[in-house]
């Protein structure tokens, strides 16, 4: 990567829930147009970390800035502004189950301060549904979709906003090999098309291999290691080797 400008900057973040300290001390940068993969055991606080980035949770200590916004001290209007440029794919999809796929996709767009016209929105919907190859589900309810389809619709719902930053929480987990490859390709394609910078949380090694420019391994609330796919892969640390054993 040529770019050196950091779009997300995190320094010495700490987050506890009551007595339970989940994130002890985490620092990292996300560069412009970079794909940063975060790996780590279940329950180490990966989701908690990216929820801090989108302002769903507030870190207890440390510094966190996303673009020009200081997340440690941000008011509701600024936060809303920021959120319109950051896409978040929830681990469970979080589709609105009382709305059709189409309305799910239109929901945020219609409520933008400078909302596109209804016909532009229609075009956008068709475009992103094409992208995730689910055009035929437009009028279905989420309950009628399979798990993988839900995930892809959720992905479409975030991509329709043309975000500058994407936070993917396990985009390929629970999908078959072919679909998860397609998703990995889509992540790359979206970056190429819209110059998106992304943080990708995943356990899926083939997804890591395909998408990662850089990898961070989280363990017990701290950064255990950082580097490119090949660097990390050669690590002597047993915990880290375990992730790559299957490859």
């Amino acid at each position: 990567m040529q770019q050196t400008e950091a779009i997300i900057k995190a320094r010495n973040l700490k987050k506890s829930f009551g007595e339970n300290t989940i994130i002890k001390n985490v620092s990292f940068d996300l560069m412009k147009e970079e794909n940063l993969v975060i790996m780590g055991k279940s329950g180490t606080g990966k989701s908690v970390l990216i929820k801090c980035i989108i302002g769903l949770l507030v870190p207890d200590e440390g510094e966190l800035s996303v673009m020009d916004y200081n997340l440690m001290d941000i008011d509701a209007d600024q936060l809303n502004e920021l959120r319109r440029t950051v896409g978040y794919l929830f681990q469970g999809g979080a589709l609105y189950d009382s709305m059709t796929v189409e309305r799910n996709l239109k929901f945020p767009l219609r409520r933008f301060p400078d909302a596109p016209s209804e016909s532009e929105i229609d075009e956008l919907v068709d475009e992103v549904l094409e992208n995730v190859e689910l055009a035929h589900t437009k009028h279905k309810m989420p309950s009628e979709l399979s798990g993988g389809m839900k995930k892809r619709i959720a992905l479409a719902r975030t991509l329709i906003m043309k975000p500058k930053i994407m936070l993917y929480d396990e985009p390929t987990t629970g999908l078959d090999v072919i679909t998860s490859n397609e998703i990995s390709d889509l992540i790359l394609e979206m970056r190429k098309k819209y110059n998106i910078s992304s943080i990708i949380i995943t356990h899926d090694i083939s997804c890591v291999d395909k998408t990662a420019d850089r990898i961070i391994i989280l363990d017990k609330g701290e950064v255990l290691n950082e580097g490119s796919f090949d660097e990390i892969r050669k690590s002597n640390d047993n915990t880290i080797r375990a992730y790559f054993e299957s490859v």
Partner: protein
Amino acid sequence: MTPQKCGENSTQIKFIILEKLEKKETIQKILIGQAKQYLENTGSIVNFTLRFLKNIFSPPFEWRELLKQVYFSGYKSLFFIGTTSFIVGMVFTMQSYPTMSSLGTESWIPTMISLSIVREIGPLITALIFAGKVGSGIGAELGSMKVTEQIDAMSVSGTKPMNFLVVSRVGATTIAVPLLVLYADALGFLGSYFAFQSKEEITMYFFFNQAISVVTYVDLIPSLIKSAMFGFAIGMVASYQGFHAEQGTQGVGRAANTSVVISSFLIFVIDLIMVQINSFFL
């Protein structure tokens, strides 16, 4: 359950009670603890309400969602509220008939019943059934949206879940309850008429004419204001419980259940306050 197991269970219960007594958990303490928790809960609901009031005038206003919610919340409880009011009107008349007729005042029944229905029974029955049917529904719906991160997904997309979900629902319950009260009043009268005409020769026209003629604005308006407040409380409490549901299916169930318990209690509190205010003005 086998008798033996049942015995085991009761000794277990005895044991728990003894343990609690040893910890000096007297009834007073338990009651105080419960009251404290209740007040804390009420405190956060008040907080939530203030946040709600701040949002109510901030655009965008979700008209379509509001109308949809009014329609569904009204429609959902129409049958139960109707039947219950009808039965209560009937029972109330049958109960008072013997006493009234022994005093020779049975002709007062239509007016007496109509005033009690309009002032008290209609709003109370409507609100309690509405809390059970619609309040619990809102608690469960928002609760499950909360635990499946749909509410977070709305905030994250830069929209305001408070406007879309809460303002529309609370608006809907506040509008729906007074409308349903009018309907419940009418069916209460009808029930009363059927009970009454089995004892006395009376036409429906005459009965309704008598019943309605005594109801003035001074009865009706406070009753509708009170009903709107019941509706507001039900919507607010249920939305709060939903938004604060804890993880898992249990959390959703608890949100629904607590919505009903707290709003039913609040209904009586509001009723008490309103009767004081009312008597102050009259």
